[in-house]
């Protein structure tokens, strides 16, 4: 790797580089939208934990929160914004590079 090329870790996004937040964006990269309940169960986290992470993503403009009523019961839907989708793809790409570099380092050291 040339000296001037950045280490893949430098491309990681601080907001997204966290298991639950990356998981939220991973789910929303496949779906149009998901409820709070679906995200909580899929990621195996508590309500409070999920709320905090969704709030961080919403503040960064990576997800949008829509509230609606279904059969008089409130439903909170979360969907990824265009920025959220591109940030997620960039994060996955950076993580893949990092893992690839790790593999090369191991092979190179043998």
């Amino acid at each position, binding site marked *: 790797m040339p000296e001037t090329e950045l280490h893949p*870790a430098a491309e990681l996004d601080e907001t997204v*580089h966290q*298991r639950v937040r*990356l*998981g939220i*964006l*991973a*789910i929303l*990269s*496949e*779906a*149009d*939208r*998901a*409820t709070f*309940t*679906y995200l909580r169960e*899929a*990621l195996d986290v508590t309500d409070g934990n999920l709320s905090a992470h969704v709030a961080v993503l919403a503040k960064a403009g990576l997800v949008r929160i829509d509230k609606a009523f*279904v059969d008089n019961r409130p*439903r909170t839907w979360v969907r990824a914004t265009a920025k959220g989708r591109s940030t997620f793809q960039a994060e*996955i790409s950076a*993580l*893949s590079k*990092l*893992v690839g*570099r*790790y593999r090369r*380092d191991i092979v190179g050291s043998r």
Partner: protein
Amino acid sequence: MVLEQSQAKTLLTAAEGARERTRSVLSTNWFPMILFGVLALVSVPVFEFWSGTAVAALWLVGAPIGTLGTALWYRGRAIEIGVSAKPWPYIVTAVGIVVGCMATGMAGRGGPVSYAGPLLIIGLGYLVFGRLDRNLLGVGFGAAMAIVAIIVFALKPQHAYTLTMLAFGAGSALLGFWNLLQVRRPNDAGD
């Protein structure tokens, strides 16, 4: 650095797992597969023992109602399970299939295009649905139907409508029941 890289691997694996599970939940399609498969099978005796006009009427009424029913089923399912796919690619494909089948069916005037054309459109449509769901079985079924349509158009066999609808109807219904079995399996993501 080793720690960072092992964390990267853990994060990647977790993200891919979450995507995979969501993809699996969203690719549930037993309702439209069984519905349109049964509709195709029902149309066979109507054609054989009644008339081509009755079959045309069956499809003119059944296809739009079936498409609307499918849209409502997906909507209800999304509310029930709490996750939904982007609807527009599916709506555009479904409308394309219905309009394309009606257009080729009518333009064929009882000739080979009137039975091979709709099957080709259906095959291409299922191929698109399979691609959208990243469902290899769906892609394979769509491609197979398109090939059957081309063979039927080339060979012009007797009872061509019956043959094509039996192939499509049985295939679609079987794939639908297979999908239903998959989502009803205990500890599996689905309905």
